[in-house]
C-alpha cells in the first residue's frame, strides 16, 4: 500500500462522543487499519473548527498524507469544509472522504458498544474507499449569454423583459401566432378587476419592440442539444405564408378574406375568425397567419383574395416551414396550462345542455372584444340570464379527476359572479367545496361579493339537468346539490351555468419534459429543484421553469416566477462560466464493444455513438453523474469518477470488516 492515509475522528462536542467511544475508535483505526495505509489517527473535539482543520493540514504537510478520512457529520454538511481544508494544504480536495458517524450512528443509536463498532466499520469503509480516490478537477464550462424562453404567456414575457432589459439576447418561442397566452383571453383580473388587456398589452408591445428580444411566434422547439451554458436548440418556424419583412399589419387581408371558421383557440369555440388572421387585434407580432387547413387556395387552388388586395405583396403561398438553430446558455420553460376538459364529467351536461359554459368561454363572453361584445347572453345570442349558477372545483380536488386544488378557480368564480351581477343584475349562485382566498386582497373581494348579495352554497354539485320536476323548473336547468351547511338536498333552477374548470398540465408536457430533460410529478407538472427553496430551478442544470408549467398559480405568482427565473438566469450569465462537480462517467474506448446498451439508458442524451469507430462516448458536460450506464455496461468499459466500482467495492469490504457483534473479520482479499 503506497497511500499514506490520515483518519480524523470528530467528537462533535458530545454529539458523537456521547455515544461513540471516539478515543477507542481512533486507537483502533490507527492500529487495525495500518495495513490499509493509515499512518495517523486522531480524535478531536470539533474537527470542523479552524483548529481541527489546522490539525489535518499540519499532518498533510508534516507526515506527507496522500489521503484523508474525516469521521464526523454528513457530507451534505461539511464535505466542502474538509475538501477546502485539504486544498489549502495542497492536497487535491477530492482525495478527502467524509464519513458520517453522527447522522448515521451516534444520533440514531443508543447502544454505545454497537455504535462504537459501527463507527469502526464506517471508518474502515471510508479508508478502503479513499485509497481508490483520484485527484479530480471541477469541470468548468463557459456560459453563452443568450437565453431561450419557451412560452409567450405572462410568465415568459416577464422573464424575457427582465433578461432583455439587463442587456442580454432572448429568444422567445411561442407556438400560437401571437404572444399573450391565456391572460390575453381574459376580460378582467381578480381581485382588482383591472382590465386584463390594458395591463398585458403594453408588456406584449415592449417584448415585441425590444431590441434584445427575438420573437419566434408560430414556432415550436423540436430539438435540444448541448448542456448548461451551451445549448443548441432547433426551432421549427411554421410557414405563415406571410412575408414578415413586407407585411405592415394593415389588416386589409383579413378584412377581404371571404372564409370564416370557428376559432377554437382564442375564442374558445364561441366566435369565428377569418382564415388569414391575427388571433386578436392587439396581437404581437402584428403579422397574420394563413390557416392552410381551411384556406380555399390550399384546398381548391383558387381565391388568393388576400394576395390580390395586399398593398405590399407580403402574401407568399410558397413559404415552407423553416428550421433554425439558436445557441443559448440557459432555458426557461413557461409553457403554461391546459384547461380541464369538462366533458369528462358528463353529469354536468357540457355539450348536451347549450347554456353550460366553461370558464374560458365565459371569459370570452364577458370580454368587450369577444364574440358578443361583452354582453352576457345565452347561446341564442340575445336572452339575458336571470339566474346564473357558478360551479367551483370542476375537475379539481376530486379523486376521480385531479386531486389537487387548481388555486385560481375560487377567485375566478368570484370574479365571474361579480361581472354577471354587475352587467345583468341576475341572481348568482356559487357552489363551492371550500372558499379559498389566501392572497393579498382576495378575502376582501370575497367579502365584497357577500355584500353584493351573491348566494354561496357549500356543497359539491351532483348533477346539472334539464329534467323538470315542478312547473317552475320547466324550461330551465336545475342544479342538484347537497347544501352541507343546512344538511339538505337542493334543486336550484338557473338559466346559465359556468363550470370553473381546473388547470391541468399541457397535454404534451411529458414530451416537452423529455425534450428538455425534465421530469413531471405525479400530477404532470414539471418538478422544481426544491419545492420550497428552489421553485424555479430544475434538476437539469441551466433549465428553469416559471408560471403554471410548474403548478397551478395566478397571474401575480406567474409574474413573480417569471422574474425569479430571469434573475437566476442573469446570475448564471454574470458568472460567465460554471463549475460542475466532476462526478462523471467516461468510456474506455478500448473496452467498448459498441453494443449501445448505455445509449438508451441515459436520460440526458449524454452518450453519443460514433458510427465510424463503433464506440460510445460520454459528453462530460451533459453527463449528470448518476452512474446508471456504469452499472449497466456489460464490458465494464464505463467508469464513474467519484463513485467508481473500485471505490464502492472496497467500501463494501471495509464496512464488513467489523461485524455487528464487534468481531473483526479477516480482511477479504482485495
Amino acid at each position, binding site marked *: 500500500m503506497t497511500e499514506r492515509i490520515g483518519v480524523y475522528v470528530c467528537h462533535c462536542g458530545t454529539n458523537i462522543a456521547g455515544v461513540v467511544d471516539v478515543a477507542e475508535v481512533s486507537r483502533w483505526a490507527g492500529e487495525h487499519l495500518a495495513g490499509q495505509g493509515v499512518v495517523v489517527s486522531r480524535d478531536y473535539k470539533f474537527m470542523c473548527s479552524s483548529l481541527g482543520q489546522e490539525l489535518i493540514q499540519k499532518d498533510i504537510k508534516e507526515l506527507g498524507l496522500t489521503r484523508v478520512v474525516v469521521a464526523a457529520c*454528513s*457530507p*451534505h454538511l461539511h464535505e466542502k469544509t474538509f475538501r477546502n481544508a485539504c486544498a489549502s494544504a495542497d492536497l487535491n480536495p477530492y482525495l478527502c472522504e467524509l464519513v*458520517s458517524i453522527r*447522522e*448515521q*450512528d451516534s*444520533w*440514531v*443509536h*443508543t*447502544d454505545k*458498544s*454497537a*455504535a462504537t*463498532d*459501527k463507527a469502526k*466499520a*464506517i471508518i474502515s*469503509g471510508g479508508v478502503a474507499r479513499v485509497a481508490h480516490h483520484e485527484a479530480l478537477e471541477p469541470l468548468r464550462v463557459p456560459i453563452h449569454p443568450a437565453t431561450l424562453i419557451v412560452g409567450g404567456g405572462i410568465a415568459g414575457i416577464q422573464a424575457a423583459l427582465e433578461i432583455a432589459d439587463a442587456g442580454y439576447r432572448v429568444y422567445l418561442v411561442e407556438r400560437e401566432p401571437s404572444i399573450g397566452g391565456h391572460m390575453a383571453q381574459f376580460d378582467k383580473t381578480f381581485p382588482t378587476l383591472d382590465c386584463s388587456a390594458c395591463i398585458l398589452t403594453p408588456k406584449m408591445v415592449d417584448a415585441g419592440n425590444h431590441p434584445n428580444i427575438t420573437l419566434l411566434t408560430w414556432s415550436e422547439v423540436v430539438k435540444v442539444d448541448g448542456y448548461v451554458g451551451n445549448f443548441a436548440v432547433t426551432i421549427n418556424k411554421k410557414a405563415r405564408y406571410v412575408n414578415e419583412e413586407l407585411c405592415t399589419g394593415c389588416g386589409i387581408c383579413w378584412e377581404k378574406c371571404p372564409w370564416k371558421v370557428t376559432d377554437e383557440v382564442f375564442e374558445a369555440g364561441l366566435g369565428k375568425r377569418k382564415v388569414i388572421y391575427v388571433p386578436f387585434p392587439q396581437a404581437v407580432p402584428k403579422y397574420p397567419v394563413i390557416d392552410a387547413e381551411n384556406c380555399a387556395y390550399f384546398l381548391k387552388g383558387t381565391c388568393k383574395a388576400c394576395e390580390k388586395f395586399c398593398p405590399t405583396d407580403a402574401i407568399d403561398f410558397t413559404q415552407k416551414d423553416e428550421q433554425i438553430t439558436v445557441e443559448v446558455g440557459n432555458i426557461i420553460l413557461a409553457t403554461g396550462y391546459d384547461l380541464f376538459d369538462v366533458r369528462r364529467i358528463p353529469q354536468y351536461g357540457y355539450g348536451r345542455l347549450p347554456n353550460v359554459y366553461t370558464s374560458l368561454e365565459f371569459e370570452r363572453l364577458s370580454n368587450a372584444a369577444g364574440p358578443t361584445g361583452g354582453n352576457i347572453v345565452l347561446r341564442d345570442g340575445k336572452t339575458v340570464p336571470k339566474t346564473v349558477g357558478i360551479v367551483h372545483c370542476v375537475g379539481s380536488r376530486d379523486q376521480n379527476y385531479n386531486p389537487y386544488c387548481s388555486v385560481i378557480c375560487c377567485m375566478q368564480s368570484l370574479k365571474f359572479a361579480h361581472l354577471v351581477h354587475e352587467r345583468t343584475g341576475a341572481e348568482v349562485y356559487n357552489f363551492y367545496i371550500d372558499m379559498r382566498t389566501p392572497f393579498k386582497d382576495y378575502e376582501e373581494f370575497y367579502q365584497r361579493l357577500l355584500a353584493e348579495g351573491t348566494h354561496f352554497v357549500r356543497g359539491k354539485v351532483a348533477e346539472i339537468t334539464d329534467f323538470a320536476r315542478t312547473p317552475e323548473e320547466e324550461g330551465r336547468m336545475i342544479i342538484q346539490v347537497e347544501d352541507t351547511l343546512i344538511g339538505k338536498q337542493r334543486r336550484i333552477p338557473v338559466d346559465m351555468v359556468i363550470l370553473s374548470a381546473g388547470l391541468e398540465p399541457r397535454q404534451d408536457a411529458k414530451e416537452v419534459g423529455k425534450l428538455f*430533460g*425534465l*421530469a*413531471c*410529478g*405525479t400530477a404532470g407538472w414539471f418538478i422544481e429543484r426544491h419545492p420550497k427553496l428552489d421553485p424555479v430551478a430544475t*434538476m437539469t442544470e441551466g433549465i428553469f421553469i416559471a408560471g403554471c408549467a410548474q403548478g397551478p398559480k395566478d397571474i401575480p405568482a406567474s409574474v413573480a416566477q417569471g422574474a425569479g427565473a430571469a434573475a437566476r438566469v442573469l446570475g448564471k450569465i454574470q458568472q460567465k462560466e460554471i463549475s460542475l462537480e466532476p*462526478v462523471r462517467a467516461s468510456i474506455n474506448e*478500448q*473496452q467498448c*464493444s*459498441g453494443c449501445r446498451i448505455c445509449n438508451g*439508458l441515459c*436520460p*440526458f442524451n449524454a452518450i453519443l455513438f460514433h458510427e465510424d469507430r463503433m464506440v460510445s462516448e460520454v459528453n462530460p458536460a451533459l453527463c*449528470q*453523474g*448518476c*452512474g*446508471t450506464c*456504469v*452499472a*449497466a455496461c456489460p*464490458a*465494464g468499459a464505463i467508469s*464513474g469518477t*467519484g*463513485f467508481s466500482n473500485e471505490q*464502492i*467495492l472496497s467500501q*463494501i469490504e471495509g*464496512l*464488513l470488516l467489523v*461485524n*455487528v*457483534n464487534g468481531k473483526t*473479520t479477516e480482511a*477479504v*482479499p*482485495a
Partner: protein
Amino acid sequence: MTDQFEPTIIGFTCNWCSYRAADMAGTARMKYSPNVRLIRLMCSGRLDPTFVFKAFAGGADAVLITGCHPGDCHYVEQNYKALRRYLLLKRVLAQMGIEPQRIKLLWASAAEGAIFAAEINKYVEEVRALGPLHWGKSGNGSKPIVPDEAKESRTEVPA
C-alpha cells in the same frame, strides 16, 4: 450483548433522497437498529449487481437498496432501472441459493426519515428471522465474485 443473532445489512442509498432521509432521521434523533451500514451512491441506478454479490460474499446477511419514489428521480427515471435490476437480482439470488427476502428495495424521499428508520427496524427483524447467511464462509466465497482475470480477458475481445 445477548446471544441473539445480529445480522449485518449493507444499505445502498441515493444521494438525493434516501441518504438525505438517513440524515433527517439523524437530525431528528429517530432511533433504529445499528445493523445497517449505508453506502452513498449518486443514484439507485448506479447499483451494479456486482455490489450486491460482493456484499453477500463479504459476509453481509442482507442488502437494502433505497431510491427516490417513482416519478421523483433526480435523474428523471433511473430509479426505474434500479427497480428492474432489483427484480432480476431477486431471481438470480434465488438460483444461487440465497433467499430472495435477503434483498429489499425501499423508496424513501428526503422527507421520509421516519419511514426510513421504521423500515430499517422492520427489515432487521425480518433478516434476523431468516438467520445468518454463511455464504462468505462456504467454499471459496470469500474471493471476489468477479475474478480480476475475467476483467482482463474482456479487453481482448475485439471492439
